[in-house]
């Protein structure tokens, strides 16, 4: 009897929630902006990088002035925390007025939310600035780790693997994962990679997988028991040799990218992987790395991806979240983000297709000796299907967690 009543009430709530979201879907942009005014948007974003935190704070000031939105960064140690929160709210039956309005994510976190239907959308095409997004050359803007976005997330910054080294300490710079092994033999203990539980650590192995797999094309398909063993076999042979030559004999790893960068700054290592082509320049300008750091892009091409902002299905302030997502795509915002004195995040926009005045902002960006050229970066390699990353991370854990 009581249960029946609870179910009824639950259905009513769901209906109300549905009608609300249906309402939002049909709204013209101006109405969305109007509704966003006064909303407090909880932006759940990984907070391990203070430059990015400062940038998000700037975004907050701007959207506050322009749109009357109160943007609050919910600082995360790990993006998965936000996923957990949405899941916990779903578990507790909170299908409306959720506390997470916007999440900075990609890869497994996006997949987890999308697969469980915990995202609001499709919404990205509704954002006026979305028309500037490069959806033809930069495939990662529409396909995240082989998973089509279907409009459930809006791009905001691009990442591509580069290696950062201290030019004052090394001259024999490796240009491939195979050469990195040879280099490590000459300089044991002088490089490492972040913990494989961290996306950057897993990315290090993925990049090696790309270079070493017998048929890299298969990485675009989900991993199966059969092809996983075949494709990853050379990776493990290579890694078995490399690991003892890493910092702390490969028994400890920095937690994440910034921790690894601190090791270069402290002189504990000479070379590190980075997912941000401008990291060396950005960090050098902030005295987080010595002025002798330089950047190298491996010869066979490196993996690149896009990171996005997405809105949970139960977000309380969807309109405000959309306005923020749109602001992040503003050409002036994107140009500011790409400035290495800010965060050096390469733009997701098709700069050539921008109106002249907007393109000029990108042309006017300052140069730095540690910034790679576009020619060096080439076209990024697409991310493998997420199952490869989870597969190698799990395999790594089985092999090396004792």
């Amino acid at each position, binding site marked *: 009897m009581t249960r029946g009543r609870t179910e009824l009430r639950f259905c009513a709530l769901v209906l109300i929630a549905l009608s609300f979201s249906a309402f939002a879907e049909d709204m013209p942009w101006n109405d969305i902006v109007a509704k966003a005014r006064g909303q407090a948007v*909880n932006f*759940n974003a990984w*907070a*391990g*990088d*203070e430059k990015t*935190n*400062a940038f998000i*704070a700037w975004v907050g000031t701007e959207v506050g002035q322009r749109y009357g939105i109160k943007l609050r960064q*919910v*600082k*995360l*140690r*790990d*993006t*998965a*925390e*936000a996923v*957990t*929160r949405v*899941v*916990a709210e*779903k*578990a*507790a039956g*909170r299908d409306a007025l959720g*506390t997470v309005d916007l999440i900075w994510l990609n890869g*497994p*976190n996006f997949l*987890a939310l999308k697969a*469980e239907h915990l995202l609001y959308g499709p919404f990205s095409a509704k954002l006026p600035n979305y028309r500037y997004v490069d959806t033809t050359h930069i495939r990662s803007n529409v396909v995240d780790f082989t998973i089509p976005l279907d409009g459930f997330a809006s791009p905001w910054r691009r990442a591509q693997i580069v290696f950062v080294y201290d030019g004052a300490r090394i001259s024999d710079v490796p240009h491939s994962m195979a050469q990195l092994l040879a280099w490590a033999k000459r300089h*044991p*203990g002088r490089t490492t990679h972040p*913990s494989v*539980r961290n996306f950057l650590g897993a990315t290090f192995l993925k990049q090696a997988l790309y270079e070493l797999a017998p048929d890299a094309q298969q990485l675009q398909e989900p991993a199966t028991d059969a092809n996983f063993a075949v494709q990853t076999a050379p990776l493990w042979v290579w890694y078995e040799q490399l690991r003892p030559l890493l*910092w*702390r*004999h490969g*028994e*400890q*790893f*920095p*937690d*994440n*990218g*910034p*921790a690894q960068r*601190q090791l270069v*700054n*402290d*002189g*504990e290592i000479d070379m590190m992987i980075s997912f941000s082509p401008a990291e060396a320049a950005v960090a050098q300008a*902030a*005295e987080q790395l*010595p002025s002798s750091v330089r950047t190298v892009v491996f010869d066979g091409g490196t993996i690149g991806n896009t990171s996005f902002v997405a809105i949970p299905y139960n977000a309380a302030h969807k309109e405000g979240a959309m306005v923020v997502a749109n602001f992040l795509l503003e050409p002036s915002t994107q140009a500011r983000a790409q400035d290495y004195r800010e965060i050096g995040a390469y733009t997701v926009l098709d700069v050539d297709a921008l109106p002249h005045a907007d393109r000029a902002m990108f042309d006017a960006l300052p140069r730095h000796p540690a910034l790679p050229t576009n020619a060096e970066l080439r076209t990024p390699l697409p991310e493998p299907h997420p199952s490869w990353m989870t597969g190698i991370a799990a395999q790594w*854990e*089985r092999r*090396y*967690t*004792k």
Partner: protein
Amino acid sequence: MTAPRGAGIVGLFPALTVAAFLLPIVAGLAGTLLPAFGYLPAIGGNALGLDPWRRLIAYPGIATSVITSLSTGFAATLASLALAVAFCAIAHGRSWARRIGGFVAPVLSTPHAAIAIGVAFLIAPSGWIARAISPWLTGWTLPPDVATIGHRSGWPLVLCLVAKETPYLVLMMIGALHQVPARGHVMIARSLGYSSAEAWLKIVLPQIYPQIRLPIFAVLAFSLSVVDVALILGPGNPPPLAVLALRWFSDADIGYYFPAAAAASLQLLLVVFAIVAWRLAEPIVTSVARVWIVRGVRRGMATVSARAGFLVAIVLFAGSIFAIAGMALWSIADAWRFPSALPTTWTLGNWSRELASLRAPVSATLLLATAATLIALILALGCLENETRARHHVGTRALWLLYLPLLVPQIAFLFGTQVLLVKTGIDGTLAAVVWAHLVFVLPYVFLSLADPWRSLDSRYARTAASLGASPSRIFFRIRLPLLLGPVLIACAIGFAVSVGQYLPTVFAGNGRIATLTTDAVTLAGGADRRVIGTYALLQALLPMLVYVAAVTVPACRFARR
């Protein structure tokens, strides 16, 4: 704990107090134990079973995780106890020993996370100690490739815990000393030819041990299940069990809730096992010690060992101060690279840059600590006043109850509490976090207030009553002013406890309420040390300032009379 006499509203306080901190623990434990056996319908766990435990056991590093937790927990507790005992044995009777509370306050009131962050920089191969002796002594122009932080054995974690827990145990022992005629006993033993330290160890220690048993268990439980310090200094692959549980609780894959709940339950089991094992070992140690005491050796190894322990305690204490000092330097450093012993360029830019991001966590920290402390104070005063009016003292069992939040591992009940808070819709609110903090603040406030309160001469109140003062007038005009000092100290302790809370803030705040401590632990994961320095320094400063205020306010007040 009900009042036998008609005490009015005051009579409700004990029940209210017990509910305030027992409810989250009991409900939280249930909310963790059920999913540990597969029951959490909201995410598809409908049947009870052992599957979460099977998954926990299948984790490749689980044995190492458990062993790391046990070994670091026991090592930290045994070492802290030994050092505290050695310190007290040497310090007993010295004139400066009476001011010990003031000396240890800076270390005691600084949150664990801040000390851990500072220790990490001290002991890293490229850290402050190495910088101070390189290259002139060591010849290192590059830091050596040896493991310190995150060492598999967990020794840096033990080191930090010992540095933090030894002063706490010292204070607990000094508190217990008031209840035994220690001075007289030591004098008699000295006249029989024992050294002062020997006399303390052989005669005083056995008498005060029963009174410091609960604090020791609190240290043991805390060391076994600590999360923030372990995140910063402990091994990561695999981490101690409590960190593993937290890692799984926050995994993107919801399915990890179940093994996470199993890991949290196992953590509870470990603590119960450890406390029982300790209790069982006590008679054995006692009988061995009795042989030693009865043999009556004078001027033996005991004095030398106590002196060595005293020295180590002092070195660790100085290390803690240097740990904070290092972070203070970082907060005003621009460039500071290995092997420079001091920053090469200085700046105030870190502070001006961080000012905007510091504002929110500082105000949240202040607000939470003030609210939790005031509520705890009102509840504690209410309980004590009720006790006085009812002339009814709480027994040992109630003391265990008070210690419960300090004995049950946080990870074991906070997850369940979070589910409860989400269900009631108050998760992520300041009120929820205040409540979670109150669970830990209340015992400390009550314990620090109880002794001075109970030992207040009852003739003051009787005189006032005979002059016609009402009970509430006696409370507000006699007891409170007389006990102003202890009340303020209790507030300072409660404040410091609240500032230091990591896990309760993360879980009850649902990640949306950031304090200095949660932000500092997040940043310690790898952010710029100059930024971490500002957070760690503020973390240490806030409780310290409150403590200084608590000590000076009554002094000024009484000086005017």
